[in-house]
């Protein structure tokens, strides 16, 4: 089945230790998104790629970066995680175009100790 895969599902990192979360898709979608979701809150968009074009949200901290080496893969790098970065990180994809729905992965729950 076509899907969005996130690895790992659970990640524990230490305060200040860089961490990378990965997302892959078999849907061949143009657009890939990274969201941060804290407990009992709505997902918050961090950035997205339309093909190779990177689009950063204005309020995304510089501590968060992303790479998309090819259509299928996208990575979220957190350079120096703080306690406030503990959250669920969701990857999503869409075809692009008006009204396109987003397909979400299962998420990676990040714990910062």
């Amino acid at each position, binding site marked *: 089945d076509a899907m969005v895969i996130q690895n790992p599902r659970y990640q524990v990192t230490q305060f200040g230790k860089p961490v990378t979360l990965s997302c892959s898709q078999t849907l061949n979608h143009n657009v890939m998104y990274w969201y941060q979701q804290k407990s009992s*809150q*709505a*997902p918050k*968009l961090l950035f997205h790629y339309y093909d190779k074009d990177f*689009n950063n949200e204005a309020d995304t901290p510089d501590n968060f970066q992303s790479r998309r080496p090819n259509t299928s893969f996208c990575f979220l790098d957190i350079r120096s995680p703080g306690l406030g970065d503990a959250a669920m990180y969701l990857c999503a994809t869409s075809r*692009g175009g008006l009204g396109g729905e987003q397909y*979400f992965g299962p998420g990676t729950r990040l714990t910062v100790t």
Partner: protein
Amino acid sequence: AQSVTQLDSQVPVFEEAPVELRCNYSSSVSVYLFWYVQYPNQGLQLLLKYLSGSTLVKGINGFEAEFNKSQTSFHLRKPSVHISDTAEYFCAVSSAAAGNKLTFGGGTRVLVKP
């Protein structure tokens, strides 16, 4: 700018009873509307969407929603809920003016009681 308000943060409901989750949006342009469901420790799954045409939209798992342009609402309904419908529900809006990005409401937690 577009925004979404989900009027109820929590909705307790008994099994086999009907449920309605309220969603109001604000936008100065034409919008596309979505309802997503999120089960614990999982990603979001699309329940249904409104792009154009008939204002009554049917989705998966017996859910439906009605687009009301004059009231800028997109309320979600299910005539008879199951225990398995216990989850968080998010209403979302997108538009060409917002670069097709989703803006989510704050979510409604549905707790189905036996």
